């Protein structure tokens, strides 16, 4: 692999996504899970930009812009939920939050 190609970026994207996913699956702190979700989103962003870069299209970048905007909204709401959760049930451990079971 002599030249910088799209597969490099895609590999990076895959690595970040899988690390993020494993984090979501393994960690129990809801804040860490939240960060891992952000990581996965970023991985997806890299893929989008990489394909756009390869195909000479700006649409990928526009999508990423929207993704970041939505991620910002999601972050605001998600963090507010975490805050409320912490106040209400006094934990941010996902293993202890199982209100849906009962």
């Amino acid at each position, binding site marked *: 692999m*002599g*030249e910088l190609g799209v597969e490099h970026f895609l590999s990076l994207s895959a*690595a970040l996504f899988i690390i993020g996913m494993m984090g979501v699956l393994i960690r129990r702190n809801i804040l860490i899970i939240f960060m891992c979700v952000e990581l996965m989103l970023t991985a997806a962003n890299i893929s989008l930009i990489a394909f756009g870069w390869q195909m000479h299209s700006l649409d990928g970048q526009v999508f990423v812009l929207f993704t970041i905007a939505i991620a910002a909204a999601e972050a605001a709401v998600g963090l507010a939920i975490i805050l409320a959760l912490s106040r209400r049930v006094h934990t941010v451990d996902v293993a202890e939050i199982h209100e849906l079971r009962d």
Partner: protein
Amino acid sequence: MPWDLIIFYMLAAVCIAAALGVVVATNPVHSAIFLVLCFFNVAGVFVMMGAEFLAVIQVIVYTGAILVLLLFVLMLVNPDDLPEFHQGKPVQRVVGGLLGLILLLEIAIAILNREVVGVTGTATPEAIAAVGGNTQAIGRLLFSDYLLAFEVVSLVLTVGVIGAIVLALPERLGEKVVQRKGTISLGHARGVDMEALGEGTPEGEAPILSGRGGFAKASGGRKLVMTNDPDEYTGA
């Protein structure tokens, strides 16, 4: 080895290392710092792909806004509420790692065997340079083809902000709002009789059919009358 490849490998290595750091760090604050590091490197990768505008956005929005917000929340949450790191079930960890490995394998196969399908776009580096750079090109696209989506996203952001405020609001404010609406009079002349509800009602919970103990006690003892307004009810 060309320079761009060397730079990419450096960025990627730091990026992956930082990402691993996010997952394995015991202290959530460390995780957040690692995430900042990771995102900075991702911004570098964006620049390598000619997405200068997004690189800046990445730094401003993620590193500047979201991560700071995250750290704030981290500070607000009671440290006692945070779970210990090694409390996770081993099964969960093994399965998670296994799934990650399988996915890595699958994606590796997919990347190695991928073929390009589709039509090449018009946004060549020359065309972008012609309109004045990456930011200008995105701006043109955003306010022409993607105008509706752009407006919708702005609406989503607004809703997100309002939602965040409502959720994070101290619940005593919400309590008042709820109590003015439908309420069950338990035979008290002025509406809700908090004593009759018993100790089962947690503070701040609206007494509408909520507290299990309170409801059962009320139905066992006093007459239950549904009113829309506490003043509507004029004694048993």
